[in-house]
């Protein structure tokens, strides 16, 4: 099966109001072409689960600029004043979650676990409303699993079948979101023949990837 589609086709699958996990960290490793197409097609009322909202006009920041997001679940918004402005104005609901807990919540959702038991945040405002579970006398917060309608990933390479690898710090949340999206769309920088990414080097197995964005073709120009 050929999983390659255009950004237009990819975004046409995503309805207003959808929940999206978007890989990347301050824009590094984010699926930029998909994000731009979401803005171009005027998608609205999205829930976005991501580490951060980057900066204005950068990656997820473009969705914030376009007022496409109703709710953001993230660990950090300090680098995007527009996110903070919309939050304070009541236009955007923001749920803040410690970064390591956010990662484990996504992994739990994708791995069929009931959540993560973490010591992080215990005794702080991050614990508000959360269940505390004692294990052998130590206190842990129950951080509930997260899943989303779509996971939108940036990747270095995909092979024809959809196996993915990543480059350096562009890996970040992408591999765990690949587990937790009902429909997973990858935006690789390159698409390569099967076998170019050896079995031990594949980070995200092709069975998790439903679609991938076709290469830009330059025909040598």
């Amino acid at each position, binding site marked *: 099966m050929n999983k390659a589609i255009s950004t237009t086709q990819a975004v046409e699958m995503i309805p207003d109001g959808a929940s999206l996990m978007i890989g990347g960290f301050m824009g590094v490793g984010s699926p930029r072409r998909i994000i731009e197409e979401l803005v171009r097609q005027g998608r609205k009322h999205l829930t976005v689960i991501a580490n951060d909202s980057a900066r204005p006009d950068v990656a997820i920041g473009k969705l914030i600029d376009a007022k496409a997001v109703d709710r953001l679940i993230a660990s950090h918004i300090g680098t995007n004043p527009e996110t*903070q402005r919309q939050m304070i104005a009541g236009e955007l609901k923001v749920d803040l979650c410690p970064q*390591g807990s956010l990662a484990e919540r996504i992994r739990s959702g994708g791995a069929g676990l009931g959540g993560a038991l973490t010591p*992080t945040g215990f005794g702080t405002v991050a614990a508000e409303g959360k269940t505390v579970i004692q294990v052998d006398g130590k206190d842990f917060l129950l951080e509930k699993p997260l899943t989303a309608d779509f996971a939108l990933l940036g990747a270095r390479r995909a092979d024809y079948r959809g196996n993915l690898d990543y480059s350096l710090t*562009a*890996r970040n949340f992408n591999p765990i979101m690949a587990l937790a999206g009902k429909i997973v769309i990858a935006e690789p920088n390159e698409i390569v023949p099967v076998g170019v990414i050896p079995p031990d080097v594949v980070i995200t197995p092709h069975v998790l990837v439903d679609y991938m964005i076709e290469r830009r073709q330059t025909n040598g120009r």
Partner: protein
Amino acid sequence: MEDKILIAKRVAQELNSGDLVNLGIGLPTLVASYLPKDTDVYFQSENGIIGMSAVPGAGLEDDDLTDAGGIFIGALPGACSLDSCMSFSLIRGGHLDLTVLGGLQVDEKGALANWMVPGKMVPGMGGGMDLTTGAKRVIVAMTHAAKGASKIVKTCTLPLTSVRRVNLVVTDLAVIEPTEEGLVLKETAPGITVDQVIAATEAKLIIPAQVPEMNIA
């Protein structure tokens, strides 16, 4: 010497060869520039790499290689990439030897507040809560006071980053070690007296018989 550089130089003395170290954004980042000679530490950036270095030169920047602030970095031979779960498994699982973080307040129990000023600044905790909770050692690097108010307080009035007692606080006036008994004044900054530190500190300090001066080159 500029206060920030003094603090960075003193913190740098706490790093040991072989340590895995995470430096927070801002002042803590300076620590990397003042490593003692022959101290070979590994820097982790929690967005996903062990073995980060300064960007190696103009034209060598890589869109896929930045620190947690989104600033271009480089990577040393032997570096390795981590996904976010693995990165925080190292942090939360006690594999990180040391984190150096900025601070807004540290109190007599050694608890740190550094991520939020209600009604003013809500940037999110990022990785700070995990770092403070999980690192083997937590060093707070900050100015002793802000706008005339001591940042070493009886009880934190700002939201806590973690209930965990931090291991050391290094300021422009002093080195302070939070212990079960309270905050122990370990060193004073060059030219600063013990009485000056006491006067500039809201919290009660335990003063040993000998309080040496920081040994800063």
